[in-house]
């Protein structure tokens, strides 16, 4: 079989799977079930092989038994890697009512390692964001409402512009800081909010969160549409127009 023919067959299988999986939109049917099971089987088989060839073999087996390179060099293995096997196998005792306490040992090790990383993880994630949230909300100059163009200016003049807070920037920063504080105040659940200012802040926080969720939902919808467009492109353009009709 020519390589081009193989590609057409391969794409044809993809098109058939696409139609099979989309057929559920009409109603639940056997064609959909068939392709769902084919997909699950393929994914499981691929994962199993990838886990061995790409992970366990390189990161554990080869390091335990040692390897020989093509140019005759020998890398000795280390017997200590065998100790990882019983620890890993203990995880499977979760299925035994009598011995499931053993499964807690590897889980405990993983939890311990994970917990130990969390201080660094938290700081790396939120430290810069907290710092970036502290923004100036008062303008330092009224020479211009917006940031002036820096085109054709000397580095000293640009430094002066960068060092100032213009009214438009101050307004933007105020909106940002107000959003941060009002959303934070919305999560004050531990006492009854009676203060009017705080009530205004928590209500604003709720509405701003809704706007945020709306934006997230909008992005999600656009993404799903893009994925559908790509599938249609695959079926009608790549397979039908460029594949079948050009032959």
């Amino acid at each position, binding site marked *: 079989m020519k390589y081009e023919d193989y590609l057409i067959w391969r794409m044809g299988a993809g098109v058939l799977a696409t139609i099979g999986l989309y057929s559920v939109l009409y109603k639940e049917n056997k064609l959909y079930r068939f392709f769902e099971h084919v997909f699950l089987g393929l994914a499981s088989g691929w994962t199993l092989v990838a886990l061995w060839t790409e992970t366990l073999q*390189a990161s554990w087996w080869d390091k335990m038994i040692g390897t020989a390179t093509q140019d005759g060099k020998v890398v000795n293995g280390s017997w200590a890697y065998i100790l990882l096997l019983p620890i890993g196998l203990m995880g499977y005792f979760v299925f035994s009512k009598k011995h499931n306490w053993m499964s807690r040992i590897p889980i405990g090790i993983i939890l311990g390692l994970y917990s130990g990383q969390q201080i660094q993880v938290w700081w790396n*994630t939120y430290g810069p964001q907290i710092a970036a949230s502290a923004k100036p909300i008062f303008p330092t100059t009224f020479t211009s409402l917006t940031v002036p163009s820096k085109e054709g200016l000397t580095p000293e003049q640009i430094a002066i512009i960068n060092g100032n807070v213009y009214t438009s920037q101050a307004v933007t920063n105020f909106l940002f800081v107000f959003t941060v504080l009002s959303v934070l105040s919305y999560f004050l659940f531990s006492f009854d909010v009676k203060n009017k200012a705080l009530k205004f802040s928590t209500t604003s926080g709720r509405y701003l969160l809704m706007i945020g969720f709306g934006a997230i939902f909008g992005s999600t919808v656009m993404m799903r549409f893009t994925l559908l467009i790509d599938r249609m492109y695959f079926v009608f353009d790549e397979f039908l127009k460029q594949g079948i009709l050009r032959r």
Partner: protein
Amino acid sequence: MDGNKLQSIPKPILYLLLILVTTIPLFADLSVPNKPQDAAIDLYAELMKLEPGSTILIASDWTGSTRGESKGAFRAIMKILMRRGVKVAFYSSADPQAPRVYQDALTELNKEHVAEGGKPYERWSDWVNVGFFPNAEAATNGISQDLKGAFTGRKDFPPGSVPKDVFASPVLEGKEKVEDFKMLLVITASKTSNITVERIYGKTPLAFAVTGVMVPETQVFYQAKQLVGFSGGLKGVLDLETLLETGVNYPDKATAKVKSEKYDTIEGFPGKKNKGQGTKYYPTLHFALAFMILLVVVGNVGMIMSKRQAAAGGAK
């Protein structure tokens, strides 16, 4: 007209219409005006800053399920890197299928690159596949703390040879730690982007290419300067394709199609095949969104009509 009918259009008809709306515009030569966002301009500028022969690390964590967005981003980014002769070490930690998927896309892209007169982008000497790591947290932590330990034992294929240790590749020559890479770029459709910030931020410049649904969370990292730039969703892909064509302040600030005060002139690649999925799909996306808005309006009109009809019926 019965308002209830407008609210209960049969689903197969709606799906059929949706398929038509997302298919027919693909065959028309349409385009929409585009102004690249700052995040995409920053990503483009950072990629164009990389010197030929330097090496970056790419976490390719996308598969066929998000091909519509991720493949476009991958192709646009790799076009820049291939044309500039930047070397790449790839790894994946989100899905075992990811290495196969990006390699197929790279093969396709390499053919186009050679057809354009470019130097072949060779496995082993220009890029190397470090492979899949099954636990993103552990893998990223390993790369952050002990790159040598994390990648040791991984093998890839030199041309005409049996697999060899990835550190024997020219791509990873002299690379001992993650700081030795000029950039870590994560092309992802999953939370591996967050995990990368959590564990690697501050060690090497980070940049992302994420799917549309991840844009709001990624924007936060960008605003806090944890990322040097990012491409988000189909718009991000279109931005990169636009920048490939126009550059930034290129050929000069007066006549440039894309201007930015932040940068001097950054070249584009006019005359080459820069357009791709972003340019192709973006107009169609507008039709799909317009169709959805139309259906929302129809549903609401139907609801108002049925309420009025019910009220009129009750009055009788």
